[in-house]
């Protein structure tokens, strides 16, 4: 029997930008998602605003899908029959509200090898803003630690695990970081993660004018959490794009399952809508209640 897996504190941006996995080789041995900053994640602790929830199962066997927004992006959450406590809790949660959850990460890989990461909470509970802010602080610290470690190790081309342990990293940190640096094939985008720290600090100290020198457009998701759906309309031309996307969805939904994401992306690209814009627009449409994701691969008109 293995010791319990640590619940990593990771922002949505970092978790969602992961595409590496260490698959279990033996029965009962755990699988991990390795983030670009080297967090070797089997379990996560997340907190934020639950902005959407939906029961895509039946009343007898609920299957909850939800989206939890932190200061940097959204966690995609699935709760099924194997998470009975979380499932019961989901039924009572009224959105929007602050929640914290602990659970395992799951990945889904599309045909074109893009990886989506979702979270299956073992526990999900309503929390107050204090708990959420404490999580942001802890996660920002933890992100900063990984970023610093990654930078240091990038300057040590022949470093082995023992060297990293000697620097004070934990076994899991050392192992994950080396795996990430060896296998991502590119340097982690430190600007992206510094920006998540900037967003976190802005949220925690709203009265201070924090500027680490990162413009807003580095992230493909809204910077501020917006509790009122529908007010984050974005630039004016999105309205037009929304219609274009809605039309595409209808066209691409040939079998009632919805429009495949990758196909949608190709079509959007052809219309001059970038994948970042597409993501933003589909978020807006979901907030407006016009579309939903039957599963992570598809987008469907309601």
């Amino acid at each position, binding site marked *: 029997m293995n010791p*319990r897996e640590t619940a990593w504190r990771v922002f949505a941006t970092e978790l969602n930008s992961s595409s590496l996995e260490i698959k279990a080789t033996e029965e009962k041995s755990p699988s991990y998602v390795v983030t670009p900053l080297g967090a070797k994640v089997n379990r996560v602790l997340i907190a934020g605003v639950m902005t959407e929830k939906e029961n895509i199962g039946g009343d007898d066997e609920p299957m909850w899908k939800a989206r939890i927004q932190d200061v940097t992006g959204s966690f995609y959450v699935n709760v099924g029959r194997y998470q009975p406590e979380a499932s019961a809790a989901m039924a009572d949660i009224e959105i929007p509200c602050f929640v914290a959850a602990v659970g395992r990460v799951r990945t889904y890989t599309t045909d074109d090898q893009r990886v989506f990461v979702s979270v299956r909470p073992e526990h999900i509970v309503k929390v107050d803003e204090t708990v959420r802010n404490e999580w942001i602080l802890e996660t920002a610290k933890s992100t900063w630690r990984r970023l610093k470690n990654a930078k240091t190790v990038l300057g040590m081309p022949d470093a082995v695990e023992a060297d990293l342990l000697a620097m004070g990293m934990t076994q899991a940190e050392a192992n994950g970081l080396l795996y990430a640096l060896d296998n991502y094939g590119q340097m982690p985008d430190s600007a992206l993660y510094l920006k998540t720290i900037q967003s976190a600090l802005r949220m925690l100290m709203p009265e201070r004018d924090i500027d680490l020198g990162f413009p807003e457009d580095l992230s493909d998701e809204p910077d501020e959490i917006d509790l009122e759906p529908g007010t984050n309309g974005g630039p004016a031309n999105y309205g037009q794009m929304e219609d274009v996307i809605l039309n595409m969805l209808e066209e691409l939904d040939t079998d009632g399952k919805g429009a495949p994401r990758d196909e949608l992306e190709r079509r959007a690209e052809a219309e001059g809508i970038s994948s970042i814009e597409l993501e933003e627009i589909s978020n807006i449409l979901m907030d407006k209640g016009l579309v939903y994701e039957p599963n992570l691969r598809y987008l469907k008109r309601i």
Partner: protein
Amino acid sequence: MKRVLGNKIDEEQLITEVNRYLNDYHVGIDAAKRGIIRKYGGADSSSFVTASSVVKKIGELTGSEQNVDIVAKIVYVENKDITVKGLSKTIISGILGDETGTASFTIWEPGVTVLDKGSVYNFRNCYCKLWNEKVQINLGNRGRVEAAAGVTMDLPERSISMSSSECKIGSIKEGMGNVTVTGRIMSTEARNVMVRGEPKTVYSGIIADDTGKIQYSAWNDFSLKEGETLCIKNAYIRAWKGIPQLNMGDRCEVSRVDSVFEVVNADSSRKTVDEITRIGGGLDICVEGLIVDMKAGSGLIKRCPHCNRSILNGVCTAHGQVEGTPDLRLKVVIDDGTGALGAIINRADTEALTGVTMKAAEGLAMAQGEGVVAREMASKVLMKRVRVTGNVMSDNFGPSMIVKGASRVEVDVESEAAKLLDEVEASI
């Protein structure tokens, strides 16, 4: 073969058998021997195995030997009573040494074997295993011990005595060989115990330095006094349930030190779960983290009035059907981002953390069932930040703490955030 089988078979019969194997069935001579001895059950049926065993020095053992002969001197030996599948039996265990090294050994079927410390024996048909990366020599039912008459053996001075390493109490780990520590005696008491059938007084207590504290046991009288600061050389570490303990044995040297130094915070030493995992466990450790899970057995429970064990459905594992006394406790998992720690929290702290008193819990259980109590408590503590203090031990499931004190933790988010901002700004 005749010698082996003794009078179990006469010569004529033996020749007939051998002929049958060799000439009728055309098997090889070795296989024939083996078969015949098996069939008639030699007086010493293991002796044929000796033929294929190898002779090795202790230093050459890899831990994977299936059949090996070792000539070695008994460094230490004792009888142990153990329970195997519910039956108690006596085994012999101890330490063997030769010119090349030492290893622990166990004789699982000793019969009437008596071994003398300091004598040299030939240990035949042993098998070896690795445990904690050290070789263990085992003698099962095939094994034999013979006195090696006339053989004398000089063991080298144990080399480890050279390499006693100075270390801080906070970094002492399970299985460390030979350490030198400097610390202050926080408490001491004398206990009388039986060691190898003889009464002996051990002196035990707590010793601390600026990094942590540890339980010690002194097997000789060093006339330790509370409050004095000592430099202890050549002590060794043994773990009890994952908690390392400092042992002061025969080779230990103790000297009084004048230096005054700060002893670890009187109540506890703050550690991360990762640090605990590396050490294995310890006394009065303080951990801060989030309660991320609550296990079965939390909430309102019943205890056996005789032994205080928690009981299920009114049945105590030791005392059978009993009228249980109600109690409150929490079994939770605390995660600080570096690892997960199991924690068992007593009634007073459970009441304080959850705000659910014993009385309220009983009322709730009466009205809505006992399961509701645990659920209510879970909703009060899950995802809450706590600081717990207690003794930590480790097993295969990781470290766990018997909590002596627990409290909620308030974080000064703004000043911590400002600190982080300064650090980030300074380095970009």
